[in-house]
C-alpha cells in the first residue's frame, strides 16, 4: 500500500504573501512535494475553506506552515485551529517568527494607525471618514469583521509553535531543506530554529573583515563602496554580525547592509539591543559630543534594529 501521503496545510496571517511565493520558488521541487503530500489547506494557492479545517480531526495534519504575524482575531482563530489540527506547527518566515515588518506597528498606538488609515489620509473625501468596527450594521444586517488588536503578536505569543523558520522570506533552498526534513522526519528538538545556520551572516559573507572602527555612517547611495570590504567598516549599516546566516548573504552580496530578517543567534535574547551594543562599541571617538554627532548619522535606529522583530524585542511595544 503506497505510504500514506503527508497531510500539510499552509496559512498566511498578517503577511505579504512573500513566504507563500517562497514555497513556490522551490520550483519543480513543489511537484515532488505534491507527489508525497496532500495540500489540504492553502488559501493563497488552493481552494480550501476554514470549515474544511474545522471538520478535520485533531492532529490529522502532519505539518502546518503558518506565515504572517497575528494582527487580528481571525489570525489568532486560524492559528489556534491549525495548532489543534496539526502535529507539527511551523512559524514560517520573519512575521510568524518575530512579528516581521507588520510588527513595527507596535511603535504606534491602535488609534494612530486607524487615524492614519481612515481619517488623516489624503485620498479620503472630506465628510466620509468612517472607522471600521468589529460589528457594524449595514442595510439592516450586522456585519462582522475581525477585531483589530491593539498590537501585533508573534505566532508563539498565541499558540505553541514546534519549529521556527526565519527569513523574509525564507530562502527557497531552506524551504526545500525544511520540507525534506519533515518528509524524512529528521527534525531537531521541538522549539528550535530550522532552515538557518547556527552562525552569523558574516560567516558566509565573502567580504574581508578587518579593523572595526567607524567614524561616520552613510546610506549606501552616499558612498562609492568597496565591494570586497565589510560594509559596516565602510560606515554602511549591516546587521549581518547579529543575524543568523542561511539566506545565502543575499543583501550584502547586492551591496546592501543585512537588515537582520533571519533573527538573532542562539546566544542572543534581543537582536536589536545586542546589535546596538556592538555597533556603539566600535564608534571611534572618546568625546561625548563627537559620539552623539556620529550616532546622529543613524536617522531611525529603532526601526532598523527591530525592522523584523519588534514584537520579539524585550519591550515588545511602545508604552507612550
Amino acid at each position, binding site marked *: 500500500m503506497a505510504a500514506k501521503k503527508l497531510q500539510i496545510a499552509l496559512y498566511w496571517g498578517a503577511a505579504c504573501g512573500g513566504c507563500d511565493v517562497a514555497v513556490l520558488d522551490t520550483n519543480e521541487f513543489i511537484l515532488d512535494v505534491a507527489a508525497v503530500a496532500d495540500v489540504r489547506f492553502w488559501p493563497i494557492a488552493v481552494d480550501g475553506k476554514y470549515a474544511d479545517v474545522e471538520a478535520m480531526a485533531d492532529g490529522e495534519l502532519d505539518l502546518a506552515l503558518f506565515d504572517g504575524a497575528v494582527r487580528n482575531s481571525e489570525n489568532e482563530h486560524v492559528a489556534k485551529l491549525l495548532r489543534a489540527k496539526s502535529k507539527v506547527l511551523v512559524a514560517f518566515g520573519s512575521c510568524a517568527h518575530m512579528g516581521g515588518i507588520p510588527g513595527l506597528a507596535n511603535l504606534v498606538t491602535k488609534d494612530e494607525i486607524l487615524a492614519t488609515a481612515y481619517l488623516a489620509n489624503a485620498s479620503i473625501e472630506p465628510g466620509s471618514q468612517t472607522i471600521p468596527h468589529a460589528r457594524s450594521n449595514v442595510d439592516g444586517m450586522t456585519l462582522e469583521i475581525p477585531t483589530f488588536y*491593539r498590537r501585533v503578536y508573534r505566532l508563539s*505569543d498565541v499558540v505553541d509553535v514546534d519549529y521556527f523558520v526565519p527569513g523574509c522570506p525564507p530562502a527557497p533552498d531552506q524551504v526545500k531543506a525544511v520540507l525534506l526534513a519533515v518528509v524524512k522526519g529528521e527534525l531537531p528538538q521541538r522549539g528550535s530554529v530550522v532552515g538557518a545556520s547556527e552562525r552569523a551572516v558574516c560567516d558566509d559573507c565573502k567580504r574581508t573583515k578587518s579593523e572595526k572602527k567607524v567614524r561616520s555612517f552613510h546610506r549606501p547611495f552616499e558612498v562609492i563602496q568597496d565591494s570586497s570590504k565589510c560594509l559596516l567598516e565602510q560606515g554602511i549599516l549591516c546587521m549581518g554580525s547579529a543575524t543568523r546566516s542561511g539566506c545565502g548573504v543575499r543583501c550584502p552580496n547586492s551591496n546592501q547592509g543585512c537588515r537582520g530578517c533571519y533573527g538573532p543567534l542562539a546566544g542572543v535574547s534581543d537582536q536589536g539591543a545586542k546589535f546596538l551594543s556592538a555597533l*556603539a562599541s566600535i564608534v571611534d571617538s572618546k568625546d561625548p559630543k563627537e559620539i552623539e554627532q556620529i550616532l546622529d548619522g543613524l536617522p531611525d535606529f529603532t526601526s532598523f534594529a527591530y525592522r523584523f522583530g519588534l514584537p520579539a524585542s*524585550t*519591550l515588545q511595544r*511602545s508604552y507612550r
Partner: protein
Amino acid sequence: MSFEPKIVGFLCNWCSYTGADLAGTSRIQYPPNIRVIRVMCSARIEPEFVLRALAAGADGVLICGCHPGDCHYSEGNYKAMRRYPLLKTLLKDYGVDDDRVRLEWVSASEGQRFADIVIDMTERVRALGPLRIKTDLQADAVER
C-alpha cells in the same frame, strides 16, 4: 503611601561600586529604592540588561562607571559612553521617559556624589510614577 519606585543600579567594581561602599562606610543615608548589581566594568553592561530590567518591573535604571580616563581597564567606560546615547534614542521610541534611565560617572572617592545621584533619581522616577511595562505585557497576553 507614596509610590516607591524600584531602581536597578549597574555599578562597575573599581569605581562606582567602591564609591557606593564608601557612602556606606561614611553612613551617608540615601533612599533604599536602588538595588545594585556589580559588574567588573561599565563596558560589561549590555543595553539588553537595561531593557530586561525595565521589562522585569524596574521603574528606573542607573548605569555607573569610572570618570573618563580613570577606567581600571583604561577604555571600558568609553564603550558605555558610546552605547548610552543610542540606547536613549531606543528608549524614546519605546516611550520610556528620559529620566528613567541614566548614566553617571562616579569615582571610588565620591560616596556623597553617589548618594546624591540616588536621591535625585529616586525623586525624579517617583514623580514619573510606575513604569508598568511588566503589567502591560502581562495584560497583552490576555486582553487583545
